[in-house]
């Protein structure tokens, strides 16, 4: 019986491979081949280009700043999205629809329009500063745009749905029987949350954080429009290099960004696997 299912399983997985083919070919044509070309371009002058990047203090700072912004964005998104997703799973179906709709709505407006809207709100002559001065709360304009704060606001706004959706899914699947069992065993509400609900929602947290973090690393328009050059992220640096300098160093920077992302994802996966094994035990 056991053997039978394995053979059937293998057969269906072979047929499943065909289903995977279109995606694989697409991936080859539009990702792997260009990526190989990019790698080749980055090595046009041997490793000199990479040496130059590693020796430059500015590139280092831009990379550190990128990671830092991505980390903060992820943390803020998680802090906002967690209670939101929790609420979505506790309200009635109608309210739930409304809350999901609110999360999805930003997807329907283009990134560019949203970023422009933030500029209109946050700039010195923008709506917020105009009213702050009109109501006598401040004397002069408060620096909101062209600051790290501006970048953070814009990025959290764009990326929040990517955190809310996986959290909502995971929380929706949590078996409430387990929470009741914990209550039955005398756990306080806090204990129930920390020791039962939180660990069970962990896959959602990890999925959301990975999504938001990785997407943050590649942001270009938002930091370019809402930040100052001193808050430059790798995406902006890449555009600057391609347009003003040339493709070689830009390719190397792209390869480094990708490698860095893959390595951090690999580390995360390793940690995740280990902790999963520990919970199994």
């Amino acid at each position, binding site marked *: 019986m056991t053997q039978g299912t394995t053979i059937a399983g293998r057969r269906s997985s072979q047929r499943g*491979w065909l289903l995977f083919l279109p995606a694989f*070919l697409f991936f080859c044509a539009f990702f792997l081949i260009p990526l190989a070309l990019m790698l080749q371009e980055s090595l046009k002058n041997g490793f000199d280009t990479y040496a130059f990047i590693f020796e*430059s203090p*500015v590139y280092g700072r831009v990379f550190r700043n990128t990671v830092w912004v991505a980390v903060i964005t992820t943390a803020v998104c998680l802090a906002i999205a967690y209670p939101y997703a929790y609420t979505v799973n506790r309200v009635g179906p109608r309210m739930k629809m409304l809350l999901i709709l609110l999360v999805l709505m930003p997807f329907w407006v283009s990134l560019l329009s949203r970023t422009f809207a933030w500029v209109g709100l946050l700039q010195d002559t923008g709506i917020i500063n105009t009213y702050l001065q009109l109501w006598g709360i401040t004397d002069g304009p408060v620096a909101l745009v*062209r600051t790290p704060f501006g970048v953070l606001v814009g990025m959290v706004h764009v990326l929040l749905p990517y955190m809310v959706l996986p959290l909502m899914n995971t929380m929706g699947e949590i078996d409430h029987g387990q929470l009741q069992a914990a209550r039955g065993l005398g756990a306080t509400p806090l204990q129930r949350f920390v020791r039962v609900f939180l660990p069970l929602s962990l896959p959602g947290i990890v999925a959301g954080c990975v999504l938001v973090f990785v997407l943050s690393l590649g942001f270009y328009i938002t930091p370019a429009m809402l930040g100052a*050059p001193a808050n430059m992220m790798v995406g902006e640096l890449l555009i600057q290099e391609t347009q003003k300098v040339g*493709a070689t160093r830009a390719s190397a920077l792209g390869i480094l960004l990708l490698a860095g992302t893959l390595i951090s994802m690999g580390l995360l996966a390793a940690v995740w696997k280990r902790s999963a094994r520990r919970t199994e035990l």
Partner: protein
Amino acid sequence: MKQSRATKTGLIGVAGLLVATVAGCGAGGGAEADATTLTVLDFGGPYQEAHEKEYFAPCAEELGITIKTDEPTDLSKIRTAVDAGNVPWDVVNITNDFGSDKTGTDYLEPIDYGIVDKTLLLDGYADKFRVGSDIEATVIAYNSETFPTAPASFKDFFDTEKFPGKRALYRSVSSGVLEAALIADGVAPEELYPMDLDRAFAKLDTIKDDIIWWETGASSQSLLATGEAAMGLVWVGRAADAARVDKAPIAVAYDEWVQVDDYWAIPKGAKNPELANELIQCMSGTEKQIAWSDLMVYGPVNKEAAADPKVMSEELRPTNHLEGQIPVDDDYWASEYDTIAQRFNDWIAQ
């Protein structure tokens, strides 16, 4: 096992086919050139629309050809296309930091002055690899309500005590930012090059906190029009639009301004250089340049057009203010660009 090897082989075959297709597309794209179609790469926007109306359409008719357009000009696109030996354009519109006499060799075909008539053009606009398309200007534009006493010079532009307020500057190293800083610091225009970079960046440091960097003409215009910046170094066309289209109190100080021009050039490996030269000659004609100038604030490069009373009646036209023009050394920029750009990018990110 056998089957898996077969599939593997098949896979490699498919991948190979894909590579071939991708490569084939690249090679095929430009090969469709025929003798009567020219493709022009231009900057887009109202600027290109004016070219289409006054140059491309009438010249297509005169030369009996079809003219297609592509946009926007991007130097990296031109470099990549020429390096790849597959150039989809016959004529490109470029800015003055590209294709000077010393540095045009790698990417541009020399202009055939047997076809293009040099004598039509203003001095300095018939280069080895490019022919001027129009004379633009990077000027000081300021809010006349914020500053009842008009700033008149780069010195005033850098004086944030006398003229407090944010400054809009183009985030491009070769845009005149460094030249303006040096002039403001007392360097004579004829002694600008080679540039004293330490001095230029030290001067820029004095206003760094007040700078708002712009990257597109449209955003420079809106920074001025909304009052987000009190003063700016912008292209004169955008200053004019902030005043005339957006009805903002924006005025231009024309006593000192930095040269910026656009040029027509023929990318190396273009399929039909002779016809491209003929098109450039056609676009340099007096009547056409007068008609084009009527749509734009920028100045024509055709001598007679620049002296035409109707063209001169536009007070903001750069060709009316050539005595205040601070010439930019394109050869210096083309050869030093990478080093200075690196320093500029480092400085700006601090």
